[in-house]
């Protein structure tokens, strides 16, 4: 399966099934919901408790007035109830103030005394149970909500009175509402603080996961060879497993490559023998053998190259610094082409890295450089510089190898990058040089472009992916 089909299959799978929400999303959502519910319940309980406490304080106040009224009633002439007039609450004297008291003869139902605030109206008293005391909520003369405390007392052993003291609950309600508002504000601030803390906790708590992802991305980009294993103990085993996987992937490719090398060795030596034996002998049999050996040689080269290509680029997390590779190849070339006394210049910024196998980089530059050296008169030049990126996170590098040789015509340049073309049979080579370079470059998502060089000969420009390590120029 090719890379494209794999990624498109993954995309389809992604479409069919909704993406898993992020871990931090889940953690934050759950913690936030829980916090909001807890805070709401706490707020409700707080307000309820406050209301109950206020009501009970209100009732106590009414009770004090009832006791004062009883005291006043009994404090006058003996045997005769006296009108209470000094309860210390001016609102009992203000008309329709919301604060009222009344004393009713419980047997006849007649009002004996009433506060001035009632202004002659009768207070609508709810039924009083046998226990002799009740607190209830009802409507006052002005339609306002009042809270009323009634108590039955026996006066002089025979007269039974019902004493009722009422106060408007408006103030009580207002206070409760104000308290509720304050509680809501406080709890909202608290809630926001909590959510912020959760967010922070999740970020901090999940940082190792993000680090792991970054580390893996670095490996993928070829900026690192293995995943950082210094992680919390819950994640460390994962990193170790990942590294094992990367290592085994690398080993498989290495083994495949070794097998290809072994096969090459095993086939090429006998082929040399057959070729040379046939060439040293006359007759049709020898000619046939030479011809067939040549075909075998081409086939072997072709299939070995294909096998190598298949093994390439399957390794993740590798990159190679370009400068040492160019320096090494230039050194080797000046030895191989010692006769030509070539001037091989190279200009490579330190630290610039190719995202891929060092062997492939050597193969790419080696073929181009060897080609340039074969054809040049005296000068070969290698220039490496960052190229415009192909997109986000896809930095590229440009490697140009130019010579002052005869160069190629536009037609030849087009022909040269096709597989298995050799433009000049007299210059030794496998005939795969430039087309191999073009193929390897394509495997890496890069390209090979041929042009006329400033030196007058051929300019071969390679565009390759660059590892995202810091470029120090």
């Amino acid at each position, binding site marked *: 399966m090719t890379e494209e089909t794999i990624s498109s299959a993954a995309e389809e799978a992604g479409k069919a099934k909704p993406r898993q929400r992020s871990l931090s999303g889940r953690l934050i959502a759950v913690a936030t919901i829980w916090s909001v519910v807890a805070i709401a319940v706490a707020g409700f309980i707080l307000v309820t408790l406050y209301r109950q406490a206020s009501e009970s304080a209100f009732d106590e106040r009414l009770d004090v007035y009832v006791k004062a009224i009883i005291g006043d009633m009994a404090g006058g002439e003996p045997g005769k109830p006296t009108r209470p007039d000094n309860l210390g609450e001016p609102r009992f004297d203000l008309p329709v103030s919301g604060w009222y008291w009344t004393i009713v003869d419980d047997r006849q139902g007649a009002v004996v005394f009433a506060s001035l605030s009632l202004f002659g109206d009768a207070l609508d008293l709810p039924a009083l149970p046998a226990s002799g005391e009740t607190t209830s909520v009802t409507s006052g003369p002005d339609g306002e909500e009042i809270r009323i405390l009634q108590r039955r007392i026996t006066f002089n052993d025979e007269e039974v009175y019902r004493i009722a003291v009422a106060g408007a609950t408006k103030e009580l309600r207002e206070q409760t509402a104000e308290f509720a508002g304050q509680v809501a504000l406080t709890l909202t601030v608290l809630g926001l603080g909590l959510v912020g803390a959760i967010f922070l906790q999740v970020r901090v708590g999940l940082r190792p996961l993000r680090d792991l992802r970054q580390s893996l991305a670095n490996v993928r980009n070829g900026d690192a060879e293995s995943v950082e294993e210094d992680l919390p103990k819950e994640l460390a085993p994962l990193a170790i497993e990942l590294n094992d996987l990367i290592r085994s992937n690398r080993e498989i490719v290495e083994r495949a490559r070794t097998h290809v*090398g072994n096969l*090459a*060795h*095993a*086939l*090429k*030596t*006998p*082929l*040399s*023998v057959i*070729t*040379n*034996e046939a*060439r*040293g002998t006359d007759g049709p049999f020898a000619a046939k053998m030479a011809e067939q*050996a040549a075909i075998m*040689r081409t086939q072997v080269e072709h299939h070995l190259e294909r096998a*190598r290509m298949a093994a390439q680029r399957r390794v993740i997390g590798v990159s190679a610094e370009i400068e040492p590779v160019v320096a*090494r*190849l230039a*050194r*080797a070339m000046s*030895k*191989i082409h*010692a*006769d030509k006394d070539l001037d091989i210049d190279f200009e490579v910024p330190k630290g610039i890295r190719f995202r891929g196998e*060092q*062997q492939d980089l*050597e*193969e790419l*530059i*080696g*073929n181009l450089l*060897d080609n340039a050296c074969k054809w040049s008169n005296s000068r070969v030049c290698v220039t490496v510089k960052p190229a415009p990126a192909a997109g986000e996170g896809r930095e590229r590098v440009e490697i140009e190898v130019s010579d002052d040789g005869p160069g190629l015509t536009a037609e030849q340049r087009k022909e040269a990058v096709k597989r298995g073309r050799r433009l000049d049979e007299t210059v*030794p080579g*496998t005939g795969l040089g430039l087309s191999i370079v073009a193929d390897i470059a394509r495997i890496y998502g890069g390209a090979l472009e041929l042009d006329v060089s400033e030196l007058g000969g051929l300019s071969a420009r390679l565009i390759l992916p660059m590892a995202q390590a810091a470029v120090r120029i």
Partner: protein
Amino acid sequence: MRILVVEDDLDLNRQLCEALTEAGYVVDHAEDGEEGHFLGDTEPYDAVILDLGLPVLDGLSVLENWRRDGKTMPVLILTARDRWSDKVAGIDAGADDYVAKPFHMEEVLARVRALVRRAAGHASNEIICGPLRLDIKAGKLTKDGASVKLTSHEYRLISYLMHQKGRVVSRTELIEHLYDQDFDRDSNTIEVFVGRLRKKLGGELIETVRGLGYRLGSEND
């Protein structure tokens, strides 16, 4: 010129030896790395053809050992592993050139010729010394433009002296470079061949330096 061939494939080894002998070289051969290393270490060769995939001791190690011990003879490596990483590893280990398998014998011969010539400090395939002109590629000697007919032994001798022109070459050095390891070193063959060459080329060209050896041409020639 004496060449060492180190190749474990017996057929290929034989073919190389035959082709080199035919081209006028004296050839010693080894079939494994250890034997090859020993020969290269003890005998003076003008060039070595070294296969990299050898039994007992691999070619790269053989080469590295030679270079570490200060052996400077030119080495041509034969390798089936023709990736640049392999070639460069060979060059870095001290090889002077490489030929990838499968190869044509002509290519190996051309490379060996170039290596020997370069090692002696000559830039082209023609070495000129006074009236003498040696075409290494064609294996022909001319004097004042006229071709000189030589036997293979005579050719080897004059070729070696031409490569080393202007330098005194001892009798021992000549024997070491012109005959294989089984040659009887006490024989007076060298004197016989020098005598024959003097007859063909004129007595004054090959100078005898008493007690030291022979010299062809002057130092500034």
